[in-house]
C-alpha cells in the first residue's frame, strides 16, 4: 500500500454520528463501560483496540443489534434509540461485517435489494430494473460482478463489494466496516480502499475497524483507541505514531495477574518443526518443555488455534512434524495424540469441551470411559469415584456430581474440562483461551491451577488473546501474525508493546 497520507480537514464538519458514554453489560460481564465515538461526514475513522476492548459491542450498538444500557446516541445531531436493525438502516447506517452475511441461494442483485426490490408497472418486482440498478452500482464501483449469479461461492472480497453496493443504494451516511481486510489479498485490499476513498469523497462517514497499522495509517483520517470497554482517546492520523497508539491499546493496570510460580523446566516434551498448512499457517517451529508454560499470543485469526488443532491431530497439515517425547505423532489422529499423552482444552467449552446435558461425573470421566468399563458397560461406582477425586482436587463447586454441567458457572465448567484431561495424566496440556468468559475471581483460580500443573511437570501450551494472562503466566511467548510466528520472547523481554507490535507485525522479532 503506497497511498499518499491523508490530510485533515481544516474546519471539522459536524459529527454525522456520535455515541457518548454508552454502556452495555451482559449479566455480570461488562462488555462496554464507556463506548464513545464521533464520526464526521467525509472522514475515514479507525477504531482500534485489543481483542475484547469492546469494539464489536460498539458496532452492534450502532447496527441496532444491541441496545445500550446507558449513554447518548445521536445521528445528525438528533438523539436516536434503535430498537431493531431496520431502525439503524433507516437512519442511514450500514454495517459490513468481517464475514458478510449474504443469502447464498439468492442472486447478487436480489441480495442488494432484498426487502426493497424495485417494482415495475404491474406493482410486482421488476427483475429487469433490479438487474440494471445492480449493474449501475457495480459500474460505479468499478467492479464487474454478474448481478444474475447466485451469491453462493463468491469470494469474501466480492461479498464485501456487494455489501458496499447495498450501502450505496441505501444512500448510507455511515458505513461501518468491521475488519474488512482480514480475509483479503493485496489486490483486493487496494480495490476496497479505492472504493472507501471514493465514498468518503462523496461525503460518507466511514468507521474502519482493523488491527493492521499500515492500513490504518494509509487509509484513515482519525483514530479512536479503546481499551477494556472504555474510550481512551482520538487522534488525527497525521499527527500520531504507531507506538503511541500501541501504548494506549495495552497500557492498563496489570493487577489482575496471577504470576506463574517458578517451576523446574525439564526435558523437551513437544517438538514442532516446520509445520505448514497451505493458507492457514506456515513454518511453525517451537518446543515446550516439562514444567513450562508456553503462550501462543496473537490476534484472533492469526492461526493459533489451527496450529493447536494440527498438533492434536484434529486437522491435517501439509508438511513438517510433531514429536512428543521424541516420538513422531501421526497426523490426523487425535486418539493417538491422547494415547501419547496430550490433553486438549478447546476454546469453546460449551460446544467442544463438554456435553452440557450430562452430569459433572460423566463429563469429568469421559476420557476414561475405556478404563472404567467392564464388558463395554461403564461401572457407575467407579465412575463416581474417579470423578470425585478429580473434581475435589480442582475444587469444582457443584451441588452434586449428578448435576448437569450446564448448571455450573463458566469457571467451574472450565475446571471440569481440565479434570477430564487431567484424569488421563497428560504430559502435554494444550489450553485454548482458558479463561474466556470467566469472571475475574475464577480466572485467578484457573491461573493458579495451570501454574500448579506446570509445577508437577506437565508441559503447557496456552493460547490466549489476553495480554495480562500471557505476560503473567508464560515462561516464553510465541507471537503469531497471519499464520507465522513473528516473535519469540522470553519472560523478561515480553512487554505488552513487544507482543502487540509482533501481533500486528509492525516490527519483526526473531531470535
Amino acid at each position, binding site marked *: 500500500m503506497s497511498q499518499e497520507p491523508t490530510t485533515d480537514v481544516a474546519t471539522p464538519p459536524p459529527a454525522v454520528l456520535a455515541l457518548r458514554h454508552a454502556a452495555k453489560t451482559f449479566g455480570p460481564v461488562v462488555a462496554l463501560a464507556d463506548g464513545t465515538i464521533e464520526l464526521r461526514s467525509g472522514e475515514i475513522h479507525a477504531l482500534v483496540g485489543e481483542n475484547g476492548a469492546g469494539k464489536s459491542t460498539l458496532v452492534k450498538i450502532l*447496527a*441496532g*443489534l444491541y441496545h445500550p444500557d446507558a449513554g447518548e446516541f445521536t445521528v445528525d445531531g438528533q438523539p436516536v434509540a434503535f430498537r*431493531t*436493525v*431496520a431502525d439503524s*438502516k433507516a437512519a442511514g447506517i450500514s454495517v459490513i*461485517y468481517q464475514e458478510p*452475511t*449474504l*443469502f*447464498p*441461494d*439468492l442472486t447478487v442483485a*436480489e441480495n442488494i435489494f*432484498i*426487502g*426493497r*426490490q424495485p417494482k415495475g408497472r*404491474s406493482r*410486482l*418486482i421488476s427483475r429487469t430494473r433490479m438487474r440494471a440498478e445492480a449493474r449501475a452500482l457495480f*459500474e*460505479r*464501483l*468499478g*467492479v*464487474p*460482478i*454478474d448481478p*444474475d*449469479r*447466485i451469491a*453462493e*461461492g*463468491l*469470494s469474501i472480497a466480492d461479498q464485501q463489494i456487494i455489501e458496499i453496493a447495498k450501502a*450505496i443504494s441505501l*444512500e448510507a451516511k455511515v458505513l461501518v466496516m468491521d475488519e474488512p481486510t482480514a480475509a483479503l*489479498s493485496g*489486490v*483486493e485490499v*487496494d*480495490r476496497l480502499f*479505492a*472504493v472507501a476513498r*471514493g465514498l468518503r*469523497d*462523496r*461525503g460518507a462517514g466511514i468507521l474502519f475497524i482493523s488491527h493492521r497499522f499500515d492500513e490504518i495509517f494509509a487509509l484513515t483520517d482519525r483514530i479512536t483507541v479503546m481499551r477494556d470497554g472504555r474510550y481512551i482517546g482520538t487522534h488525527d492520523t497525521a499527527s500520531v505514531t504507531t507506538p503511541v497508539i500501541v501504548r494506549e491499546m495495552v497500557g492498563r493496570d496489570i493487577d489482575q495477574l496471577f504470576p506463574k510460580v517458578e517451576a523446574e523446566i525439564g526435558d523437551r516434551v513437544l517438538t514442532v518443526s516446520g509445520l505448514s498448512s497451505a493458507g492457514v499457517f506456515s513454518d511453525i517451529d517451537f518446543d515446550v518443555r516439562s514444567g513450562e508454560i508456553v503462550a501462543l499470543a496473537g490476534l484472533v485469526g492469526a492461526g493459533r488455534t489451527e496450529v493447536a488443532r494440527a498438533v492434536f491431530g484434529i486437522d491435517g497439515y501439509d508438511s513438517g512434524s510433531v514429536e512428543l517425547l521424541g516420538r513422531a505423532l501421526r497426523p490426523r489422529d487425535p486418539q493417538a495424540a491422547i494415547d501419547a499423552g496430550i490433553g486438549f482444552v478447546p476454546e469453546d467449552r460449551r460446544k467442544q469441551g463438554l456435553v452440557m446435558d450430562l452430569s459433572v461425573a460423566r463429563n469429568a470421566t469421559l476420557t476414561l470411559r475405556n478404563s472404567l468399563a467392564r464388558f463395554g458397560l461403564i461401572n457407575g461406582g467407579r465412575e463416581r469415584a474417579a470423578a470425585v477425586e478429580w473434581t475435589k482436587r480442582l475444587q469444582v463447586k457443584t451441588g452434586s456430581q449428578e448435576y448437569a454441567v450446564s448448571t455450573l458457572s463458566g469457571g467451574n465448567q472450565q475446571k471440569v474440562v481440565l479434570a477430564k484431561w487431567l484424569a488421563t495424566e497428560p504430559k502435554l496440556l494444550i489450553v485454548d483461551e482458558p479463561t474466556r468468559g470467566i469472571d475475574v475471581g475464577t480466572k485467578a483460580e484457573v491461573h493458579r491451577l495451570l501454574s500448579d500443573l506446570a509445577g508437577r511437570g506437565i508441559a503447557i501450551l496456552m493460547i490466549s488473546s489476553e495480554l495480562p494472562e500471557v505476560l503473567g503466566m508464560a515462561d516464553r511467548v510465541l507471537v503469531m501474525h497471519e499464520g507465522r510466528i513473528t516473535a519469540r520472547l522470553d519472560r523478561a523481554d515480553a512487554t505488552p508493546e513487544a507482543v502487540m507490535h509482533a501481533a500486528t507485525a509492525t516490527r519483526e522479532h526473531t531470535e
Partner: protein
Amino acid sequence: MTDTVTSTPTPAPTPPPTKSRPGGSRLAGVLRLREFPVALALIVLVLVTYAANPLFLSPQGTKDLLLNATIMIILGVGQALVIITRNVDLSVGSILGLVAFGTGSLFANVPGIPIIAVFAIGLAFGAILGAINGLLVTLARVPALVITLGTLYIYRGLNNAWAGGTQYFADDRPDAFGALSVDTILGFPLITLLAVLVVVVVAIVMAGTRSGRDLYAIGSDPDAAKLFGIPVGRRVFIAFAVNGVLAGLAGVLYASRFNSVGATTGTGLELDVVAAAVVGGVAIFGGSGSVVGAAIGALLLTTITSALTALRVDKFWQQAIVGVLILAAIIIDRVASIRTARRLRLSEARDV
C-alpha cells in the same frame, strides 16, 4: 447520491466475468431450472405409458389423472411455502381430515347451507389450524418438525373425538357440490382449474412481491435475514397460516371429490406432500425451489401411481419407485450444486 458517477478511480483488477450470452442462453436457462428434471420426468412417464396403453390419455383417463392430482397439488403448493422458509408442516394431513369432516358435517347438519359459505368456513378453519402451527413455531423456537408432529397427532385426535364412528357420505351433500369434481371446462375438471389458479397466484406472489422474496431469504440464511431486518417471525407465521388455508381448501375439495369423510380422512398424506415438494425441486433446507415445481412434483407422483396401474405394475413397486424418485431428486440437486460450486471456483481461480 445517485448521479455522481465520479471519482471512483478503481481500475478493475479483474477481467469482466462471463457476461450473459444473448443467443442460446434462454435454452440453457430452461435446462438449468430446478423444475426442469421433474418436468422432463413427467413428460417421459406420460409418453411411455401412453405408448404402452393409449387408453391412458383418453378424455376419461386424463380427467382421472388431473382429479387425482388436484388435492395433492394444492397441498404441495402450501408445503412448498413452508419448506422454502426452512420449516416443514407435518400436520397437513390432519388439517385436511378435520376440514373434510367439518364440511361433511356442515352439509349434513345445516340443510340448505350455501356452498360458498362452506368454502369460506373450511378455509377459515384451515387458517386457524395453520396459524396455531405458525404461532407455536415462531414463539417456541422449537423446530417445526417437532411442533407439527405434535399438532399432527393433536388435530387427528380432535378429528377422532369429533367423528367417533360417524361418516358422512356424498348423498348428504348437494349435487352441485359434488359436480365440482365431475364437470369440466375444455376437459379440465373445475376443481383442477381451481388448483391451477392457486398455483398461479401463489407463484406470482412468491416471485414478484417483497414478502415472497423474504421467504426465500429466510430459508437461505435465517440469521442473515434477522441481520437484514426482515421480520422473520411474521413471515414464517404467515407461511404456516397460508399453508393452513390451502390445506383447508384441499379438505373441502376432498369432500367434493370422494364419497365418504370420517375420522381417518387424510391420514398419512403429509409424507406424500413433502415428497411431492422435494421431488419438485424444493430444497428441504429452504431457500430455493418454487411452488410450480412442487405442483409438478405432485402431478408426477400421482401420475406414477396411475401409470403403473395402467402398465399393470404391482402396487409394491409403485411405492419403491416414489422412493427412488425422491432420492434421484436429491442426488440431481446435489450434483448440480457441486458442479455449480466447481464452476464458480474455477472462474474465481481464473480471476486471481
